[in-house]
């Protein structure tokens, strides 16, 4: 019978006896709990985004996140205090997902990207974002949330990954490059393309639905 992550085997020795005997371990454990565990909600959300929410229930999102924290704890001595702990955890989560999810290699689809980018740019620069037809800029953003998610799903995996890490997870270009194990220049070019694709799709939707006007 599958042993869900909801009921892991617990140590038979209470933690207090361990801390009494090994103050350095207790200190290490306390430091990890203080610095890494506060990022639990962020890792949970990232795990769902990374898997497009379609996790195998045999390898649930809970499993992915728990595995990430266990690996992080084992490797805690390699983390440099003062650096971005969340980015460090995201890199571990990325490797956990790749390793446990067994996704097939996903390459950006071969498309006429130059033509697509040109069309995206046309939509973007011919949309009057500054004078929306709805009352406020907040309403513009609110009404664009569903189409932006749909446009995100259309992106090639590599581009989707970069825009999520930089624009949603707020990683720097260098941190995103480290998570994805690719050059910073690759992050920049993919980010630029991803943003224009998303903005172009939103511009089309915004004009078609009357949220904003098209401009000359």
């Amino acid at each position: 019978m599958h042993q869900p992550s909801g009921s892991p085997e617990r140590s038979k020795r209470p933690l207090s006896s361990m801390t009494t005997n090994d103050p350095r371990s207790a200190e290490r454990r306390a430091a990890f709990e203080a610095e890494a565990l506060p990022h639990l909600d962020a890792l949970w959300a990232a795990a769902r985004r990374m898997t497009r929410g379609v996790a195998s229930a045999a390898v649930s999102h809970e499993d992915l996140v728990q595995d990430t924290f266990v690996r992080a704890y084992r490797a805690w001595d390699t983390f440099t205090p003062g650096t971005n702990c969340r980015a460090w955890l995201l890199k571990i989560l990325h490797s956990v997902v790749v390793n446990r999810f067994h996704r097939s290699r996903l390459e950006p689809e071969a498309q006429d990207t130059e033509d697509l980018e040109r069309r995206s740019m046309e939509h973007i620069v011919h949309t009057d974002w500054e004078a929306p037809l709805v009352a406020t800029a907040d309403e513009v953003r609110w009404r664009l949330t569903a189409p932006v998610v749909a446009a995100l799903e259309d992106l090639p995996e590599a581009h989707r990954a970069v825009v999520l890490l930089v624009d949603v997870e707020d990683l720097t270009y260098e941190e995103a490059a480290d998570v994805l194990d690719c050059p910073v220049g690759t992050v920049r070019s993919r980010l630029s393309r991803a943003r224009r694709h998303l903005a172009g799709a939103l511009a089309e939707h915004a004009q078609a639905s009357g949220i904003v006007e098209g401009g000359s």
Partner: protein
Amino acid sequence: MTAERHVDERIDLWLDGLLDETEAAEVDAHLAECSRCRRLARGLETTRDALRESLSTDPAPAGLRANILGALDAVDAEAMEGSAVADEPVAQLPVTTDTGWGGARLALAAALAATLGALLWWGIRPEVDAPAEEVAEHVPVTVEEVDLVDLIHRGSVELAADQLPVHVAATDAATIEARWEAGGVTFPVRVLDLSAMGVEVVGGDAAVLDGQVAARSVYRDGDRLLICWMLALEADALGPAERTVEHGGFTFHVYSRDGRTLVFWEEGDVLCGLVGEGDPEAVLGLAQAKAMAPVVDAV
């Protein structure tokens, strides 16, 4: 004005605050005069804001933190006992001091190399150099036998939160069925109409259970959510039911898990399941009604 005289090449860096003062001032000055570039900047900014707002910020489920702490206890116990046995064969993660954030870099070679092969997720093949003896096939979960009913129960519990994630929430059949198609559902299923019983469709997506793609739809019945599952399987795949009920030419297989009732039945080659809390007979009644219900026309 040509692209070079616009600021296309620098607008992303400007947006991210990565230009130096001089370049930022140049871009600012150009934007003040060029409506085209102003629209580009505003479009990219609006899109980024919409993206940030759109994605789920659901907190981690209750209990996950406790489970993680329990797992850390196990790691501490191993260390205290000097045991080299790990619950998973993860090699030590080496530290390098080359470039990377903060001067330290985490190399995740050992757990990745051998099992990756053609595996990829983000679309980028990770470059890993792992000593061969440290490479081990990752065994993620000890699965002696897959209990499909348990998997479906867990996949239902994760949706029974206060608010459906944005990628699940939907009230129109076309959106849900498009998600099914995009998620790899190839068997014939439709969103069913339970409105006559006061039950409204509130969401749906595709899920994967032990490698099997499932179409999932979510209904609201008053205060509770009902999760409907559809898979290309036979009821034999479920294991023995706690009871079976014959009704209207269908055989309903009834299970219970943690206060929830799970009712399954076959419709042709598709195994359907309905998962709900509360009165088991009410869930069974809805399942029976669902088996006879008409489909919702996709608009």
